[in-house]
């Protein structure tokens, strides 16, 4: 349940998004922050670039008590350091017990998308929740040779990632999980990454069982929850 003031509170997220905050991980965390989540950005402030010293990040300290580490598939293509930090973040999250969320960004170029999806596959066992942006569905479907309709289920059953989901503002959300599938329609008109932020904020509160997941998916699709008028 959300708090009386409508904010989620007490939900911690660590974001390894870009300094310009235009990638999927950053956008998700900005939305979550609006909902009241405590977000810590690894790359803070303007002027920061992708050429940071990834060896200087103290991951145990940064991850602290956070529920989620939010990463996206485009990060490792930005620079060698970004790639190193991206890899290290997921290993430390695994060690610290923070669950990793991977936002599969919409593709900018076919070859780049292939590389980033390949890197995600290499790390797939460290990921707890994959969110496939609706624009990326077709690209993955083509890369894997799997029809779009079966894609999420196939990704889940092949990789055993606990939750694989997507959302679009017309047809609603689809969540594939270890015990089946949850579909929830929504006509709230919220954006996919707003929905994801809502899901991440709500899930730790309701528990990660089927009923909790259903509730989190439903609440995440509400206008009010997403902070829209």
């Amino acid at each position, binding site marked *: 349940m959300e708090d009386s003031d409508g904010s989620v509170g*007490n939900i911690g997220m660590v974001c390894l998004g870009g300094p310009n905050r235009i990638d999927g991980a950053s956008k998700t965390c900005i939305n979550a922050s609006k909902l009241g989540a*405590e977000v810590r950005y690894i790359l803070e402030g303007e002027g920061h670039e992708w050429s940071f010293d990834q060896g200087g990040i103290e991951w145990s300290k940064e991850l602290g008590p956070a529920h989620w580490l939010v990463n996206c598939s485009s990060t490792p293509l930005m620079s060698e350091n970004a790639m190193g930090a991206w890899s290290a973040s997921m290993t430390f999250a*695994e*060690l610290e017990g923070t669950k990793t969320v991977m936002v599969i960004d919409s593709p900018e170029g076919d070859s780049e998308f292939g590389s980033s999806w390949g890197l995600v596959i290499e790390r797939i066992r460290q990921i707890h929740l994959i969110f496939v942006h609706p624009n990326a569905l077709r690209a993955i479907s083509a*890369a894997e040779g799997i029809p779009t309709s079966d894609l999420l289920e196939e990704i889940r059953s*092949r990789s055993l990632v606990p939750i694989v989901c997507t959302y679009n503002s017309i047809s609603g959300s689809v969540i594939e999980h270890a015990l089946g599938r949850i579909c929830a329609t929504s006509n709230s008109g919220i954006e996919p990454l707003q929905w994801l932020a809502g899901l991440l904020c709500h899930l730790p*509160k309701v528990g*990660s069982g089927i009923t909790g997941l259903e509730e989190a998916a439903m609440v995440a699709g509400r206008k009010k929850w997403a902070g829209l008028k």
Partner: protein
Amino acid sequence: MSLKLGPAGVPLSCKGRTIVEGMDDITVLGLDAMEVQTVRTIQPQHFDQYWQAGILSWKSEFEMNMHGPYYAELLGNKRERNRTLSKMETSLQAGKIVNARHLTFHVGPYGEFEPGSAANEQVANIMSGVVERVEEVWGESENEEDYAAFPWLTEEKPSLVGIETSGRQELWGTVEEVLEVCNHVEGTVPVLNMGHIHARGFGRLRTSEDYAELFDQARETYGGSTFYCHFSGVEHRMGNTMHYTQIKKSDLKFEPFAEFLAEEGDWMDITIISDSPLLEHDAMYMRQHYDKARQRLLEIRARDERREKLAAEQGIDPEELKKKEIEAAEARKAQQEGVVEAPKEAIKAPAAQSPSKKNSKMISFEDGKDEDDIF
């Protein structure tokens, strides 16, 4: 006994991403095997680094292996089977170039078959075709000149075809099925994925005796002494693998396996690949536990030898001496407990919790853990 350990893929801590860079890192970590993942289509540009990896493994004692496509439908209809076989063909071509000692393949869902001998026969037929194809790809020794760049093709045996146990009830690949097929098809080897076996057997691998039973079953059915295993922590439910976890977080422990290998594994030639989310970290964890188990065994043996020698010197039965030693140890322990009992009471405060997670005001996933927890 030969035991090789390594990760499934390039180590997570490796700065570079090529296979050769991964091999360097694995060697530095004191490990000696790697399983290359060909889960996606292999591009021609990958072959150059595969060949470099092959040369490196040929010149060193490093064991290379290859994992075929994750998704297979060998028991499906003709179209599904051919699609799987064409993916497998790519893996075995790459296996040749990389000097793979084992090529691991899944079979996939039962498809049109019921579990039983008909399905097993079909798998055996397909796998014997795969073994033939591996030998064909490996080439004839007369063509030695053509293979100057691939010395292992003439001096090593072709890769063994590994058939992996599956972790879900609807997939072909119980231990019995895999062993039966491997027993009938020469050139194949069972790939015992311990996480899958544990999950499918409703948590059957708990003690070293459970491992002894598993390998006895393998020895009786399959007969060989070469084994290829995968090990990872696993979350399971109703006989199905839910997802992979690091070893420390799973009810599948490595210690009993290490104990079994140290005590009874002398007859085995075994490779263990860590496919946990903490690839090389867990491979090293396994190495440490195996070394500890070996050390403990050596200590026990040394103590037994010493006892026998002392008993002979004193002219008494070694068993009698052992009994006396146990009595003396118990008396010592009782005396020590009497001394430390008081302070123990005094410090009986609740154990300190990890400041990062437990003392936080934040809600924890663990607080309201459901019966059907997806994680």
